[in-house]
């Protein structure tokens, strides 16, 4: 009976003594009895700091990729031979002489030839100071591919440059590339999971609710699918994609490939939940009242299973993101000139490069941040999913 929550308000039979006695003791603010399970879950979710933190980070990152053209100062594909592998230009407030600037600034670039390795090396030129301006006019672009605009979030006056996260080996701005790459990497998981959810919940629900031979065949099929080595199978599928398709088609094919194998575990978990709810007395009560299969599934099972499905889905997104990153890193997923975090990390494949230009690893940091955030949120929802636990 521990299910009876501590946050239970006191309701009682219409006896004034009783009600008065309990009300005095209760001293509850608001009436929790009126709150739906969803509202209770939301309250509980908000109490989990890591999950809320993860949610804030993801909201920030997704708005960044949504407004990418506005956020980035340079086109992600434009090379700049003068600034090849320039280290990050960090925004500063205090200059080399110790003066404080209210407006953040970046230093200019000083280029020297490394005579040993025969490459140009770039350093900050402490004499040149370029203040960072916000909402500056720059190259025109179309926001969401529709609204023509030319204002960018930040920029510096010519001839200064602002490569906040450095440049790659073609002198392209890493920050711009990461933001644009995030578009693929952060949405491939979502699209993949949506497909997974559709496959997984339909097949899982049907398998659990109707059982019988369909259930047996499906479960055996899932077992066989699950025993395939995934990376090899993905690689095989990806290698089979025609090389001449557009980046966007390739992206959708990759999502489908990821979800083709990803739905199995979701289907199993949904099936387990449906089996549990099918045996619950409230489902029997609905059946006894003459409810159809559809009503029992839609009114009594899915809403209850939904929180679990959301948890599974949230925790599946990082797997998809990592899978895309892995495929692209191996050159089988998103291929240049299209960018994704995995494709960007291809530049950081050798130790020599990583030692010399460590900022080329930064896309990896974004992968980690995103995956962690999704995991924190998933854990938060899972804990909140049972609002009656103490």
């Amino acid at each position, binding site marked *: 009976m521990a*299910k009876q929550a501590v946050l239970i308000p006191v309701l009682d039979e219409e006896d004034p003594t009783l009600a008065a006695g309990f009300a005095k003791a209760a001293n509850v603010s608001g009436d929790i009895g009126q709150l*739906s*399970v969803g509202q209770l879950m939301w309250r509980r979710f908000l109490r989990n700091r890591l999950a809320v933190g993860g949610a804030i980070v993801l909201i920030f990152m997704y708005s960044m990729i949504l407004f990418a053209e506005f956020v980035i100062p340079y086109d992600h594909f434009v090379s700049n031979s003068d600034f090849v592998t320039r280290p990050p230009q960090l925004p500063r407030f205090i200059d080399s002489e110790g003066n404080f600037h209210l407006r953040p600034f970046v230093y200019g670039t000083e280029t020297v030839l490394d005579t040993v390795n025969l490459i140009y090396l770039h350093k900050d030129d402490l004499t040149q100071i370029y203040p960072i301006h916000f909402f500056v006019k720059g190259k025109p672009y179309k926001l969401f591919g529709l609204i023509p605009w030319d204002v960018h979030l930040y920029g510096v006056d010519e001839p200064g440059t602002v490569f906040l996260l450095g440049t790659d080996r073609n002198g392209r701005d890493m920050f711009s590339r990461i933001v644009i790459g995030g578009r693929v990497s952060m949405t491939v998981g979502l699209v993949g999971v949506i497909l997974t959810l559709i496959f997984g919940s339909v097949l899982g629900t049907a398998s659990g609710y109707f059982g019988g031979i369909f259930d047996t065949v499906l479960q*055996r099929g899932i077992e066989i699918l699950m025993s395939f080595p995934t990376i090899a199978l993905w690689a095989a599928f990806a290698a089979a994609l025609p090389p001449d398709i557009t980046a966007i088609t390739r992206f959708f094919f990759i999502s489908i490939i990821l979800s083709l194998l990803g739905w199995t575990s979701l289907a199993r978990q949904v099936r387990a939940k449906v089996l549990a709810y099918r045996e619950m007395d*409230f489902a029997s009560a609905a059946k*006894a009242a003459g409810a159809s299969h559809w009503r029992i599934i839609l009114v009594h099972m899915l*809403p209850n299973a939904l929180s679990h499905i959301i948890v599974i889905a949230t925790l599946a997104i990082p797997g998809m993101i990592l899978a895309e990153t892995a495929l692209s890193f191996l050159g089988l997923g998103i291929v240049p000139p299209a960018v994704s975090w995995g494709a960007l990390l291809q530049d950081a494949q050798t130790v020599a490069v990583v030692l010399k230009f460590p900022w080329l690893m930064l896309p990896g940091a974004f992968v980690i941040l995103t995956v962690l955030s999704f995991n924190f949120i998933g854990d938060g929802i899972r804990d909140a999913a049972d*609002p009656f636990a103490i």
Partner: protein
Amino acid sequence: MAQKENKTNPNGSVDSRTTLLEVTDLKMHFPIRKGFLRRVVGHVKAVDGVSFSIQKGDTFGLVGESGCGKTTTGRCVMRLLDPTDGQIVYYDREEGPIHIESLEPTEMRVFRRDMQIMFQDPYASLNPRLTLRQIVGEPLIINKVASGKELDDRVAELLRSVGLSPEYMNRYPHAFSGGQRQRIGLARALALNPEFIVADEPVSALDVSVQAQVLNLIKDLQEEFGLTYLFIAHNMSVIKHSCDHVAVMYVGRIVEVAETKELFRNPLHPYTEALLSAIPNPDPRQRKSRIILEGDVPNPARPPSGCYFHPRCAYAKEICSQESPPLQEYAPGHSAACHFAKELSLTGVL
């Protein structure tokens, strides 16, 4: 295991009132599946040839220990499970006898208005996602009996009839205690004005002080709405208090049926005697030695030969391990399934 039990109505002969429900040779065998292809390797005979009949306006008790098949019997009667074999005949006010076991799902849906069920677990029986209005009103919505304002009025009336305030209509089940949830479950069962309610262990999950409230409510509603109950319980005191007739089940079979007082006073089956003797008596001045049964209830997948009770029976003779005794009437309205029901003089508790 197909020996035909006594096919005649075991307790109908004394009672001239009309029969509402008649169950004959009901069987529910669950397959045991094993292996990669889930092949059937055996059966759990949860209910194995149960016959009884319930008179209109009666409370018919079904009592037994866990695993005896009493809950399965209740669910078969409600067609929440499809029985393997046997007949369940419901004598409808207008349409005469209806064979529940052979109704098509669509016909069953119409018929469900007459029969309802309330459950044991107050926490599992209410969908946590729905408000009281949706829970209690669900049968009305499904059967298109009421909607809108009319639905609200009907739900309010139902809540009032089980002693809950209609103000609670917009609340969710988590705001209610176990006893209140059982009231909500009763309100839902009453929504379609049924004649017959299967009450499956309605009070066994409740606190002692709340149990009495719910038992009284069940009784009051019976008088108010002229209900007939199939009352399933394992607590003999509750059965004694609530039921007019009792059937005792053991490993999927009925071993004895009688009018309640008669069964408690003059048990004819040794199992009933042991069951009665085991009831703890809330009076320290009346401590007595009890009949202590040896061993445990057998597994219904591998029941013993002959009379299922013989390995634990103090009175068992050779025939008991060989032949299964049929349920026979020994006194008017009092039947037992024991080879020696006539010879043994067993002690009751009244």
